[in-house]
C-alpha cells in the first residue's frame, strides 16, 4: 500500500518530514484520520495533537496551536504556527 508523504511545517521551519501510514489530527469539527488514498481536502485544525504513525510503527505526536492541513494525492501538509513535540 502506498504511504502518505507527510510534512509538518511550523512558522519557523519544517519540523518533520517523511513517510507515514496514517495521520490523525483534530479538526475544528472533531478528530480526523487520514489514510493513503484520501481524497484531496483542506481542513482547518483546532489546537490539539497531531499524531503521525510512521512506516515502522514509530509514532510522532506533536501539539499544535491550530492551523490547517492539506491532503493532496497522498501528500499531507500540516501547517501550524507553533509546533511542540509532546513525547514520542
Amino acid at each position, binding site marked *: 500500500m502506498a504511504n502518505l508523504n507527510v*510534512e509538518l*511545517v*511550523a*512558522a*519557523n*521551519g*519544517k519540523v518533520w518530514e517523511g513517510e507515514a501510514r496514517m495521520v490523525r489530527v483534530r*479538526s*475544528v*469539527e472533531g478528530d*480526523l484520520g487520514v489514510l493513503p488514498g484520501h*481524497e*484531496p*481536502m*483542506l*481542513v*482547518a*485544525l483546532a489546537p490539539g495533537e497531531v499524531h503521525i504513525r510512521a512506516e515502522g510503527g514509530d509514532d510522532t505526536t506533536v501539539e499544535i496551536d*491550530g*492551523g*490547517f492541513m*492539506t491532503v*493532496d*494525492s497522498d*501528500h499531507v*501538509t500540516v*501547517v501550524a*504556527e*507553533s509546533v511542540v513535540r509532546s513525547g514520542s
Partner: protein
Amino acid sequence: MGAQIREYRQRIRSVKSIKKITRAMELMAASRVVKARQRVDDTTPYADAITQALATVAGHSDVVHPLTTEAENPTRAAVLIVASDRGLAGAYSSAVLKASEQLVTRLTEEGKEVVPFLYGRKAVGYYSFRRREFAESWEGNTDAPQVERAREIAERLVEEFLAEEGGVDEVHVVYTKFVSMVSQEPRSLRLLPIQVVDDATGSDTDTARSGRDEGGQMPLYDFEPSAEEVLDAVLPQYVRHRIFNCLLQAAASELAARQRAMKSATDNAEDLITTYTRLANQARQAEITQEISEIVGGANALADAK
C-alpha cells in the same frame, strides 16, 4: 617630549580603542546576520504551504472574506513602519523612514488619512521628535524578532482593519527587504486587503503543485468544515506570516547594514591611525633635528668663543 607628539599619540590611542569597538560590533553583526538569514530561509516551507493553500481556496471556491474585500472608498490607511531599535547601522533606519515618508505622502495625496504603527525605537524616536501622532508602537528585539511579536502586531492590525467604526480600510507595511549581504532595499507592500494571487485563467492551471500533479491538473478539493471556515483559519495565519517574514527580513537587513557600517568605520579608523602615526613620526624627527642643530650650534659657539 614635545606637546605635538603627545597630542598625536593621544589621538592614536583613542582611535585604536574606537577601532576595537567597531571591529567587535562588525564581527558580532557578521555572526548574527548568518543566523538571521537562516531564520528567513527557515520560514520558506511555511510560506510555500500557506500560499499554496490560499491559492487552492481561491481556485476552488468563490468565497468572499472580509480580509480580502476591497473597501469601496478607502479613507483611512494604516502604515506599519519596520525600523530598528539601535543605530550604528549606516543608513538603515533613515532609508526605511524615507520610504515610509514617500508612502505617507502618496496615501495622503490619494485622500487617505494615514494611521502610523511603528516598530523599532528609531521609528518611535523619529515620530516623537517631530511631535507626530502614532497609533501604536512596538520596541525591543528588532534584530531577533519572535513569532509572538508578529502575532501581536498582526492581531492589532487585523482588528483595526475589521473594525466597523473608525477602523482602517487598508494596511501597508514598509520594511527593508533583504536582497543580499550587500544590498537591502526599503520596500512598501499592501498587506490588507489581501490580494489573493488567483489565477484568472481558471482553477485548473495552478502551476504551484504541477511537480506532483500529472498534467498540472488541480484535483477537486474538499473543504472541512467549509470553504469559509478554512479561509477564516488560513487568512489570519497568512497575515501573521507576512508580518513575521517582514520582521525577519528587516532584522537580517539591519544586521547586514550594521556589519557594513562597522566595517567601514574600522577601515576609517585604520586610515586615521596611519595618518596620525606618520604625523607623530614627523613631529618626532623634527624635534630630533632641532635638538641636533641646537647642540651643533651650541658647540660651534663654544669653539668660536675660545
